[in-house]
């Protein structure tokens, strides 16, 4: 009980700091929401999802009846602290660059012997639901990565290739509206309606975006992951549906994460 309270205070303070110290330069018009955000205070319902994630992490499951506590998120088996600040990265066992979503599913499959097809099929909550297993686990990993410095490894050729491919996809224009990621995210101090748009080609903008996902999405009452953010951006680009943990998503996350080097993790934050 005590530790949970502390954790919660920690989450609150960090979220508040993230709001106050957010490195993104906000145009003066965007200050219209400063009062709103201040009134929201430090009460972030993400705490529920984090606790659920911790429970899922520690509960033995699957045919092998083991927990995920020996899952290697890149910093060694069982090390959760700071892991999100160094993902996506190359994993020798999987022979693949994986992000947190792909890695968690990989651990469920290999450690617990679980069939992850169903989880892959519905990784994200619909409106009105209370959170998926994957969302809860990502929230837990994010919480334990709070304050860690973003530092994606780029030593392996596969990691370098992912960055390159991510950059290419970032500028790929397609669909009836001719949109690419760059349409909205390659200029500084712009907004779409009233929402400030981070420039993901800069350290500042990429840093803000990378360190604040996953986030509790106020408008939906749900904890949303970076994978969901990509899927939702792709939807508004009028493209088909991005799949959780897929290569293109990992490539885009790598592009953003490498650009964000040195930023400080502040997730799960509060989002619109």
């Amino acid at each position, binding site marked *: *009980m005590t530790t949970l*309270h502390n954790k*919660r205070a920690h989450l609150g303070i960090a979220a508040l700091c993230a709001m106050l110290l957010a490195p993104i330069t906000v145009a003066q018009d965007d200050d219209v929401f400063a009062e709103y955000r201040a009134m929201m205070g430090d*009460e972030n*319902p993400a*705490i*529920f999802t984090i606790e659920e994630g911790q429970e899922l992490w520690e509960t033995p499951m699957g045919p092998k009846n083991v927990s995920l506590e020996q899952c290697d998120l890149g910093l060694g088996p069982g090390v959760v602290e700071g892991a999100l600040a160094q993902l996506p990265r190359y994993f020798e066992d999987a022979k693949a660059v994986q992000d947190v979503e792909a890695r968690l599913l990989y651990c469920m499959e290999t450690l617990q012997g679980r069939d992850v097809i169903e989880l892959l099929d519905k990784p994200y909550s*619909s*409106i*009105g639901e*209370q959170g998926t297993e994957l969302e809860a686990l990502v929230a837990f990993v994010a919480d334990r990565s709070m304050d860690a410095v973003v530092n994606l490894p780029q030593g392996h050729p596969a990691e370098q290739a992912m960055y390159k491919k991510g950059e290419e996809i970032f500028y790929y224009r397609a669909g009836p509206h001719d949109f690419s990621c760059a349409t909205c995210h390659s200029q500084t101090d712009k907004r779409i309606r009233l929402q400030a748009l981070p420039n993901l080609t800069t350290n500042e903008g990429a840093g803000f975006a990378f360190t604040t996902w996953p986030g509790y999405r106020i408008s939906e*009452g749900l904890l949303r992951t970076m994978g969901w953010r990509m899927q939702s951006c792709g939807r508004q680009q009028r493209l088909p549906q991005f799949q959780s943990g897929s290569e293109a998503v990992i490539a885009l996350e790598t592009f953003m994460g490498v650009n964000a080097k040195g930023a400080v993790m502040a997730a799960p934050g509060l989002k619109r």
Partner: protein
Amino acid sequence: MAGKIRVRASLNGDKCEVKALMRHPMETGMRKDAQGNQIPAHFIKEVVAKVGDRVVMQAHWGAAVSQNPFLGFEFTGAKAGDVVVISYVDNKGETDDGSATVK
């Protein structure tokens, strides 16, 4: 293990400041899901906060209170070590409670 209500209670002078966060969908009954089906109303109707037998707050809510509701209030006469218990009942008869020790 506590339920899905997070409570904080902290002394500030002679007042005890209480902040509670509850995990609840607070469905209005007016929304539709992706398949176009009406999502039935599901919301907290009543909340009570007590210290021992003393009621320090009681509220009736409609479905317009936001999802994962927040409740903040202050009361006097608390001392460190008191336990504030908050409980709710919703329109389906589901209940939950959570507590915090005053600090």
